[in-house]
């Protein structure tokens, strides 16, 4: 009697666990989002169309247009450029030359339709890189806004 109950108990636990495991893998596989650069995205050609990916790069200078709540710009990685359109609200101080990550799909017209613009939040501070000149922006602002 005791042993039978114990066996039942073990089976019950195993059942719960295997059901969970099955759900887990399914859910994980379904929601994996690949992170690509513009070069990698273009290299995939037609295979990339309609697959959700995260695309990261720099906002190309002179390409940002904002019309009736549709934001369009180009993301580049110094080799290739991908045009992006989105209705998502841009993060604070969205400006040319900043690094962004967008999540969405490449459409058949080779334009990337993004439904999210990411706000990165790290807990480690990185000082500005070479070539970035926060002081300049800072100075310009503090003179212009006084």
């Amino acid at each position: 009697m005791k042993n039978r109950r114990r066996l039942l108990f073990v089976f019950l636990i195993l059942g719960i666990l295997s059901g969970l495991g099955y759900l887990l893998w399914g859910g994980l596989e379904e929601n994996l989002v690949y992170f690509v650069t513009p070069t990698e995205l273009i290299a995939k050609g037609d295979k990339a169309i309609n697959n959700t990916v995260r695309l990261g790069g720099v906002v190309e200078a002179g390409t940002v247009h904002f019309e009736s709540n549709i934001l369009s710009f180009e993301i580049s990685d110094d080799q290739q450029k991908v045009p992006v359109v989105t209705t998502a609200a841009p993060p604070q101080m969205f400006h040319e030359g900043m690094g962004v990550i967008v999540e969405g799909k490449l459409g058949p017209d080779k334009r990337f339709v993004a439904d999210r613009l990411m706000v990165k939040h790290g807990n480690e501070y990185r000082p500005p890189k070479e070539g970035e000149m926060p002081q300049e922006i800072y100075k310009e602002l503090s003179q212009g806004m006084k």
Partner: protein
Amino acid sequence: MSPIVTIGNLCIGLSIGLCLFGILSFIGARKSGSETAASLGRGSLYGNFILMTVANLAMIYALLSNDFGVSYVSHVGSLETPRWISAISLWSSLEGSILFWGWILATYTASCLYLYKDRKEGLLLWAGLVFLVIELFFFILLALPANPFLPVQPTPANGPGPNPLLQNHWLMAIHPPCLYLGYIGFTVPFAFAVATLLEGPSGGWRGSGARPRATGEHGWAEPEPGPPATWTLLTRPWLLFAWSFQTIAIVLGGWWSYAVLGWGGYWAWDPVENASFMPWLAGTALVHSVMVQEKRKMLPVWNLMLAILTFLLTLLGTFLTRSGVLDSVHSFTESHIGPYFLVFIGIVLSASLALLLWKSQNLRQPGQFESFLSLEFLFLFNNLLFLSFCFVVFLGTWYPLLVEAIRGTRISVGEPYFNQMTVPIVLLITLLMSLGLVTPWKRGNFKNILSASRFPLFLSLGITLILLIVGIRNWAILLLVLLASLALDIMIIEVLRISWKRAEGNILKFIPAKLSLLNDNPRRYGGFIAHIGALILIVAVAISSIYDQEKEITLKPDETTEVGGYQLTLKEIRGDEVPQRFEIKAVVNVSRDGKSLETLTPQMNFYPTSREPIGSPAIRSTLIEDLYLTLNNFEKDGSQATLKVIITPAVIWIWIGGGITMLGGLLAMVCGRKREL
């Protein structure tokens, strides 16, 4: 060279020496039974506490006095930083965090052994030994890869200041200390669990019959009367304390994210958030399952495993957030600290597993599982759910890193994964809360359970029906409200019923009677309060994540627009120079139905050392909804500003619920302790 450099390094060096000395003392004390050796071991822990206090105060002094001859100050200090921010910069970067960690760890361990210094169980000697081994690891980190006290030659005139993100909000002064109190507090149950395994089943009475020992002058042949306390009893207050702080730390972290980052949300399943959430999930399972051991003499080995798992998850979480592994799997070796952590995690894991395999056989307890309809089974089910939850988060956090390490492709796990997986688990956990309230230990019967929950069930069905009539059609929310209000009703009815009985119908005695309940059965009624907080929090998270509206507006000065029933008028755009930064402010007047409510000032802060500005959203919180404004863009001539407006219901209840949960945990820890030990 700055004197602070000398003081700091001297403290760290002496602490390492004391650790080694104390470890030897504890081993000697356990082997020979010498009371002197045990005192020396405890003395090392006290000594480490004093040394760490001195080292931390020295660092705070160096930060406040801008002593740029100290390496840490030259990384995170600056002349322009406001002084209160300089003081809390102690935990704004890696080296200072580890130093602060050492201080909290030394405080926990010294006070724990001090409070239990009169107890005679050998268990405590082993626990002290484990404490010292863990301290040794952190002190070695401080001495080598994360030394905050390196001399800087020549002394710079100024420094870059702390990370702009961390000097933007008062929450940064309290969120990290709370998190450390939580994280590091889980060391105590871990150390006692390992000590139990090392000591074996005797309960560890020094000189008791299990292992006869020569009795010296201060012989221990005379054990004190009463049964030997098990490790779960000894560590329960510490576990509840750590758990309460871990709870509030996670909530405060969400609040910080909400109040600073300007995206309008508070939780993104970000690895940094998950790192703090996983130990909490395992710790919550442990808080529940130790009760089964105490009441029913069951699950002794399971509890040991959970305590070890919780501690391991804190180490893994720290590794995740502090080793640079998140930027790229291959960059973590440059962080200096990553490899040390991996080695230590490996040692803890293999030693614990070996102990569990070799030593847990003889710790079995007589408790027998009797029925599926019993509180112990519900607790077991609760544990399965919390651990599954933990595993879901674990997989979603580590799988991308694993793929990157093996295949070199970068992937991320989308938020839908976490949401899909956790919603059913949370619903089941909420259901268990009510069942657990009406199911007895050992063996229950359906009739009693039904009769106990009939009235609350009607009540909660009524509440759900009201929501349905009001127009809420989301089935998950309705189900959640049904389950949550069921648990709430059961608790409230029980408290009212018993206090009414106590007050003997006298309305004046009603409230005092309520309070005396806490002292009678602190665990049950402290638990009630914690669960009420958790239910509030769960419902608030659900409602706020489903019903929010977002809109982006562009306004010229004195222009008005309407969003979600509010009229927003842009008064002006202003630039202010303050010592450490330049602030651009949009002054917005908020009114409703022509009645002015308040003026909100979302701003953007430009730091001379940071390319991206750091925003400060402006939030109007009410008990019903939050109006959340961020300044997204502006014309430099002040002619127009682009604002994002987010209106989210019930957000404030998340922070309130978190606060109540923490309070419940602390009350369960503080009230009625005398009787139990």
